[in-house]
């Protein structure tokens, strides 16, 4: 459960105050499928960074499962990022020297998970994204879609409650983009809260709930405007079926 109230984020840039977020109020219940849309500079990435505990609000309150995140110290925030939140990035952010297996294993290595258990969980995660047989390939030997699926496996391997995806299909062609979206939606269907930031209308409109941002403020939230129901759910390309 995510609760933002009156969240503001102000950057000081060369003596100017840039209001990236102004008075954001947002509540995201567990299991939600939410898209955040808006032009670049609208504050959607800043919002995502705050939701992911990579950044802190300048003012206001962010409660994650009841914990007031703004008051927690850096080490606790690291723990939250490691255990409760998964990230999926537009540019994948796989470590190029590591195999797919080692990339998925990475968060568990630093979290101190025992070796035997790590192998088991990596296999499960790679099987879930249909890439078990590519486990010993390095990112350079994988296609874009495969790389993003490895990144998703890495994002969920620690068993987070929330998955934050920043333009997850931005670097992909439409076929592999579709596969990645299908994968993310399947994980949402299994109970994971999914928040997708995008300026791709087609992608954003697939979510159950849409938030539209401009100039650091939420200008439209489908959960509040009664008229707009859940977005149209077009037929999906079926999952990768591995």
């Amino acid at each position, binding site marked *: 459960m995510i609760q933002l109230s009156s969240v503001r984020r102000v950057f000081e840039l060369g003596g100017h105050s840039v209001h990236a977020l102004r008075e954001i109020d947002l509540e995201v219940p567990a299991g939600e499928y939410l898209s955040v849309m808006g032009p670049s500079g609208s504050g959607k990435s800043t919002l995502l960074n705050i939701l992911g505990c*990579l950044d802190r609000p300048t003012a206001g309150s962010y409660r994650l499962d009841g914990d007031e995140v703004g008051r927690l110290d850096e080490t606790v925030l690291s723990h939250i990022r490691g255990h409760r939140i998964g990230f999926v990035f537009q540019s994948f952010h796989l470590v190029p020297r590591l195999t797919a297996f080692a990339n998925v294993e990475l968060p568990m290595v630093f979290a*101190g998970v025992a070796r035997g258990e790590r192998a088991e969980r990596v296999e499960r995660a790679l099987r879930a994204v249909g890439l078990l047989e590519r486990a010993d390939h390095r990112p350079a030997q994988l296609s874009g879609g495969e790389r993003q699926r490895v990144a998703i496996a890495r994002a969920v391997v620690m068993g987070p409650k929330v998955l934050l995806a920043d333009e997850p299909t931005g670097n992909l062609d439409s076929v592999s983009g579709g596969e990645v979206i299908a994968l993310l939606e399947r994980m949402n269907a299994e109970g994971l809260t999914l928040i997708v930031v995008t300026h791709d209308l087609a992608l954003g409109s697939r979510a159950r709930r849409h938030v539209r941002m401009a100039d650091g403020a939420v200008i439209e939230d489908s959960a509040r405007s009664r008229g707009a129901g859940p977005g149209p759910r077009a037929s999906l390309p079926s999952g990768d079926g591995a």
Partner: protein
Amino acid sequence: MNPADLVRFSAEALTGHRLRAGLSLLGVAIGVSSVILLTSLGEGARVYVTGEFSSLGTNLLIIEPGRNETTGGSTIGGTGVTRDLTLEDALSLRRRVPRLRFVAPIAAGQVSARYGERERVVIVVGTTADYAPLRGVHMRSGRYLPKGETALGQRVCVLGPKLEQALFAGENAVGKLVRLGDERFRVVGVWSPRGVSLGRDFDENAHVPVAAGMRMFDSSGLSEIDADVTSHDQIEPARTAVLAVLKERHEGVEDATVVTQGSIVGSLTRILAILTAALAGIAAVSLSVAGIGIMNVMLVSVSERTGEVGLLKALGVTRAQVVAAFLVEAAILSTAGGMVGAGFGYAGARAVQTLYPAFPMFPPDWAVALALLVSVSVGLVFGVLPAWRASRLDPVAALSRR
């Protein structure tokens, strides 16, 4: 996080920039191997020199004119006028200090030696019959200098085998007359080859009776008096007795120095130990240069891997873990460099030994241990700044890079 996993992660990170890592590793290796080689040289010099001095004879006392706190060097001390050691001093030491087994006055100098058409500039040592047992001179043919005080001025001489060869070219020298300086001396004997000692070839010298030598060099004093005792524990009492006799003979002024082999070796050992430490210090400078090389490589690595650091933070890796990962990476580099350098050092020492078997070239254990320890700490110390930088990277900014 498991330490083994940390080391594995950091070691794998090094494979991402092999050439740069290899070059900075080489820097440390050169630093460590130069520490090892230079200290081996210093230690080798110490062992070599003390070995050479031991070959002089262990119970030797060398009495020199002048009062010096150290061995050798200037004879003008703080006591004012220095008197020469005279032949009479030597003769009276012989009579009055019974602990001394052999006493040989020495007046040495360089003159030209001639036989027929052949001429050489040689070192002539004016001494007595006691010199032969003192310095381990054994005769190959003829006999050594005659004994007794009446023989001190005789014009006889004993030649080293190389000098004999140089002047007589295979002829037997014994019984022949040879010109030394302005006088002619009869050759009474030739000693067996004795070899090089402290870089001087003893076998090229000639020995004459001491008074004849002083006449030859036109000198009223001796350059030194050599003496020995029968056992090592006699050295100190003998030294005291010698100084007492000379003080009495020199009107109460203590103006002579007794140098024992122990004191020579002691001061040489001190000097060479300082030399070794200085060499190690110079080599250590190259290690710190290598450390800067590591820091440079690590800084480049951090800035190249900004995106990775951002990712690690997003994955829940703490600041302390980021610091640890980069520190371990630097330490692996410098430790590996240290080990490669130790290998180079031992190989180099082995090579020098093969080329110059007479020179003892052993890397001292303390230097090897110290060099390895320093190389590990070089990585840790010079890795701190890059690691700290990496840990302070803002994850949002770091992730947006690349």
